[in-house]
């Protein structure tokens, strides 16, 4: 099983996680810029954070043969803090970088006017830099947040096929399915989405434009739940090819739209180079 985790906050994870992820078949990750638990108070903190996402973190991942890319943005929560707003002016130089494959996470937290403004401005940046966009959906008032996000996306003029709405569930999946946007699901130990529920969604809605991620961060989360979802799919009768589509080819297709995805050396088929042995040996 080859796995591309399209949304994981490795900054908050240990090097042991990389080791376990690599052993489980994770060969590529995308790390979206987000908040860190502790609110930041100046743009300089963001600079160091963004630099880490295009410097140290890819190096750390590379030691375990995991390819690391990033998405860069001012997240919705901190967009509300006037001290952090100048981060918007820093973004263009990061959006030129090789390892940056989308603008994100953008979207809503509390649906304030400040969030509206930052969301629209950053969708415009995605268009200007010819990059896809990763849209976080709010945890509170989610359904209305998703509807409002879709309206902002439509208004921005970005092509829907270059946008993913993330952290969806049984309720919100219906709102996004027919918009042409991609659908992201964050598999969590207890909250957002679980492997069995994900399998049910895949049975109902198919595998097209579906992205499964662990969204692992500093909270109660697990970077191996992508793999657990793949295994649950197989148990439910999905084929190896279905699993490969959801866990590898879909994220490659979505982020590949940036023209910057570099998977040289890690994109060989899952049956090659001992990967099946690895799976059997676990």
């Amino acid at each position: 099983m080859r796995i591309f985790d399209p949304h994981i906050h490795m900054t908050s994870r240990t090097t042991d996680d990389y080791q376990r992820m690599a052993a489980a078949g994770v060969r590529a990750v995308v790390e979206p810029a987000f908040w860190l638990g502790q609110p930041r108070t100046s743009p300089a903190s963001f600079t160091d954070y963004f630099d880490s996402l295009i410097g140290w973190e890819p190096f750390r991942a590379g030691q375990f043969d995991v390819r690391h890319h990033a998405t860069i943005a001012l997240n919705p929560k901190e967009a509300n803090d006037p001290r952090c707003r100048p981060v918007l002016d820093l973004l263009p130089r990061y959006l030129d970088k090789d390892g940056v494959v989308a603008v994100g996470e953008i979207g809503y937290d509390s649906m304030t006017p400040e969030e509206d403004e930052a969301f629209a401005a950053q969708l415009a940046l995605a268009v200007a830099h010819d990059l896809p966009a990763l849209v976080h959906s709010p945890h509170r008032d989610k359904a209305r947040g998703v509807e409002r996000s879709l309206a902002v996306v439509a208004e921005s003029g970005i092509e829907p096929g270059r946008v993913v709405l993330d952290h969806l569930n049984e309720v919100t999946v219906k709102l996004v399915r027919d918009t042409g946007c991609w659908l992201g699901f964050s598999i969590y130990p207890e909250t957002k989405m679980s492997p069995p529920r994900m399998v049910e969604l895949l049975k109902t809605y198919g595998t097209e434009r579906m992205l499964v991620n662990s969204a692992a961060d500093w909270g109660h989360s697990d970077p191996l739940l992508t793999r657990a979802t793949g295994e649950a799919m197989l148990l439910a009768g999905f084929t190896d090819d279905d699993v490969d589509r959801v866990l590898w080819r879909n994220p490659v297709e979505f982020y590949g739209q940036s023209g910057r995805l570099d998977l040289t050396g890690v994109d060989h088929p899952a049956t090659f180079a001992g990967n099946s042995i690895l799976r059997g040996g676990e």
Partner: protein
Amino acid sequence: MTPDRLRAALDGVPDQEWLDTALRRVAADPGEIPRFFAAAGRRCGRGPLPDPPGWTADEAARVLLLTALRAEHAATVTALYSAGDAAEKRAVLRALPLLPVGPAGVPLLLDALRTNDTRLVAAALGPYAQHLDQAAWRQGVLKCVFMGVPLAAVADLDERADGELAVMLAGLAAERAAAGRAMPADATALLDRLGVPAAPTGRATAPDQLSPREA
């Protein structure tokens, strides 16, 4: 290394026209370099060049862009390094010996030597490291050994290695021996060439005096 050799090495890059345009525009306006510098990997490729050995296409292209500058070299390399991703930083470090910057790039080397990125540490110890003082240079060499960076990355190694470096290497060798861990072969060979220091002070404590944690 010369710009001409790098230019010749890049004759086969996928987007020749992009490179020519970039070089022309950077020569005309140094303010244009950041975007070209950032995009060099996806335009020119990132694979190793057959010649010169040890160079990748993106690195050669970025170094060429810097050599195309007509002025403001020191300010530009400092800005590009500080705003760069790891590959851009490394390219700046490798360009330094080809640019008229005098010792102005030393703070960049010191920054690179503070990182834990082996690619940056290695690039900081190229020919431009002649501007590093001896203490910083020795620490850099020792860090290479510690991190497993091949000492082939270090320019002028034999000319510059001194008795103090031998003491430091012998200390590391003693710690590794106490822990049952091997020294890299190139470090052992260097130590042999330098001659094992007779009475290392402090550092090279006998194995039975090291606490397990230090070992």
